[in-house]
């Protein structure tokens, strides 16, 4: 009983300390981040410059693994596309009961807005996309997802400016029998170019890119 009580007291102290820490956070870091929660395996050490993100950043190229291909062949032509995004994880939450909401914009990542760079012009659902850098966000619906390219680069993912949309594309979704813990975006080669595969929990959406 005493042991249980002391655990309670300890937890109370810890939660109090957490609250205090949040209050001390600088204004810029106060933005609410609904798609990230406390990491279960954090680098807990003190880092006075920048702690390691709960939702780690990652990078995907097409051709897939382009930097490695370039290591094997210095004369390879430039890449087609590169994506930089952060990877939130479920951590025992449900995707549509705690993280995402139907019909509400989602940043397709975490932290900085997900960024996609086309090294050459491509076409998506018949629309020409000039070479250049864009950010990516989406709107999940119950039966399809809308994937949006937007020109407001170097921005934070929480507030989208739809006046800067460069293209909106509806894609159908599939339900997988495998559930992914971490949000994942990769490119997969197709006959006409590449699919941007967007997957989290048991949902898989594909945005076909034509070269």
């Amino acid at each position, binding site marked *: 009983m005493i042991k249980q009580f002391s655990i309670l007291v300890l937890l109370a102290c810890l939660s109090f300390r957490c609250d205090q820490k949040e209050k001390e956070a600088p204004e810029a870091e106060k933005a609410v981040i609904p798609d990230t929660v406390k990491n279960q395996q954090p680098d807990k050490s003190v880092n006075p410059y920048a702690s390691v993100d709960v939702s780690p950043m990652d990078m995907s190229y097409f051709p897939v693994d382009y930097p490695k291909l370039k290591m094997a062949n210095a004369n390879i032509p430039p890449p087609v596309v590169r994506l930089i995004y952060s990877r939130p994880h479920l951590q025992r939450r449900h995707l549509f009961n705690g993280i995402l909401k139907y019909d509400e914009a989602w940043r397709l990542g975490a932290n900085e807005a997900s960024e996609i760079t086309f090294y050459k012009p491509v076409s998506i659902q018949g629309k020409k996309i000039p070479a250049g850098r864009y950010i990516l966000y989406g709107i999940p619906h119950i039966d399809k997802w809308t994937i949006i390219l937007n020109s407001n680069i170097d*921005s934070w993912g929480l507030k989208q400016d739809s006046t800067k949309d460069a293209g909106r594309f509806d894609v159908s979704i599939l339900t997988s029998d495998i559930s992914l813990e971490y949000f994942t975006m990769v490119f997969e080669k197709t006959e006409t170019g590449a699919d941007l595969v967007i997957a989290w929990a048991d949902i898989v959406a594909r945005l076909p890119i034509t070269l």
Partner: protein
Amino acid sequence: MKKNAFLFLWALLTSFAAMAQSGLPEVDKSPMDMCYYPAQYPNLKTQDRKTDPLTARVIYSRPKKEGRQVFGGLVEYGKLWRLGANEATEIEFYRPVIIGGKKIVKGRYTLYAIVNENSWTFIINKETDVWGSFKYSQAKDAVRIDVPVQALKESIESLVMNFEKENQTIKLVVAWENVKVALPISL
């Protein structure tokens, strides 16, 4: 309590198993990260806050010390080091800058270092979209600059980079283990 720990482990293992089954990439052991000058630029921009003009961005992966000796061990003195992990560390300038007295035109570059006990040589190279430093070519260097090493009292577990401003000079601070160095960038 024990049951909870077991459930947690089971959940963890099954999630890893799911990742392996799907054929999609798992989360990197050395996670990627990004820093801007001005620091927190995307966040501030999205809040419509005034900042210095957008100047630079670094994208790098963050290996952990994990009990190893980093400098003089994992990172050998006097040898080229990729200053990160996985994809080569990338530094992008959104405007022309001056590094080591040399004018650097705006654009993307890769960033490497040669680490010694008392000084580091930072290398900014023009070859981008590459993996690590395995095919590094000195012929494509944009500039090299030597900077002194500063000792830190506390050990830093994960490699970290961050932009700071001192007087009119921007510094890219790099810190890991008990060492901190700063790459000066002038406008």
